[in-house]
């Protein structure tokens, strides 16, 4: 259970895991920090409500995903491209292999969200469906398509 007093500790403890999940969606360090920062800010504003939330970590992650989706769905690909570029010279603390990042980049956002929750954070199919507001079969579809695409992309680069 989180509280206003314990928020700082919870925030610091939750950040690294949440960051990895969001990074899988945005594929960009600065974007990840930005949307995650805003999600934690919202969590702080709603700390009383979140006190009884069964999975506040998931709440922050999904909120960050929604922030990312809301922001970028308003922008067409050109704007998104420029946004990424204008921020991209900030130092990346660490990065993925080129082939994995390329393969992930080709996936639709929803597939990356499902992979972040199901594979990286190892939430169950039901939890993932609940967090994303979609059905379990839909999670399965996104998961299968995403993993197939990744396998093809990684195989392609290895050939």
């Amino acid at each position, binding site marked *: 259970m989180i509280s206003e007093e314990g928020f700082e500790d919870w925030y610091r403890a939750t950040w690294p895991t949440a960051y*990895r999940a969001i*990074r899988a969606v945005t594929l960009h360090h600065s974007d990840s920090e930005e949307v995650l920062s805003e999600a934690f800010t919202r969590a702080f504003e709603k700390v009383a409500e979140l006190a009884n939330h069964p999975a506040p970590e998931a709440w922050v992650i999904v909120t960050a995903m929604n922030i990312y989706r809301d922001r970028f769905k308003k922008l067409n690909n050109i*704007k*998104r*491209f420029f946004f990424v570029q204008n921020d*991209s*010279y900030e130092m990346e603390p660490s990065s*993925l292999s080129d082939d*994995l990042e390329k393969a992930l980049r080709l996936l639709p956002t929803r597939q990356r969200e499902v992979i972040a929750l199901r594979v990286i954070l190892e939430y169950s199919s039901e939890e993932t469906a609940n967090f994303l507001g979609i059905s379990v079969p839909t999670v*399965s579809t996104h998961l299968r398509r995403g993993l197939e695409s990744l396998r093809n992309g990684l195989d392609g680069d290895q050939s």
Partner: protein
Amino acid sequence: MNSQDDLLKDFSDVTSRIKSEFKTLDSVAPSRKKVLKKKPFVLVAAAATIAVTLVVSPSLTGASDVNQPAWAAVPTKLTEKEKEEIKKVCLGNDLPEKYEVVIVDERSERGFIVLKGEMLVSDEFDESPMPGVDLDSKMYQDVVCAYKRTFSGFSTKGVFSVMSNVSTRGTGWGPDKLGKTKVWFIHSGVGSNVVRVEIQTAQGLVFDASLANGVFFAWWPRLEEAHADATGKTNALARFYDKDGNLVKTFSLLTGDFYKGEKMIPLN
């Protein structure tokens, strides 16, 4: 075990790779002060959009120790006679038959010629423009010559795409004595259905690449690291259009990437 667990098991090679790589991604929570600070996401994007609308200023001068050549979105229209002269000046009388000039692209103060043939290797340049390791993807820069403006040449063989930055010494070359310059360039083969290739760079330039003989080539001034990431890479978009103006394909390109022909070329 439910079907999703079976699925994850079937794809354990992929999931284990994802898990292991993401475990290495470290990020420490920023101080709370930073958490509460919001960056102007949309404003940044909007500013970039304006840059696209404005397209290009007549002269792009980077704030660096490297001189940047003036650059124009629309290349100089060269006559066939001029192209022949450039070819002679740049390649000399001993031009081997094996070298075919496929593109001559002059934009304001600098031009490039693209050759097709055997590899040319030279120590004329400060850094190798070659990021790729695929033999068919290699492209070497060799020719530097003066024909009204300074031209640099690339030679290539095969069908490929590679984008890189190139630093030319060029001091003393050409009437403008441009000195050391740095540019980004992109080069690839395209399908015969493609009649126009539009490039959009990270720094907000939108312009048509030169396209001829099944090859397109584009270059633009490198404004140092402002448009490159921490590793010095930069991105560009290449959009391919057919004769009816339909967008055939859009490709996002990252410096250092190379794409084999089948991935890059919009097929008929």
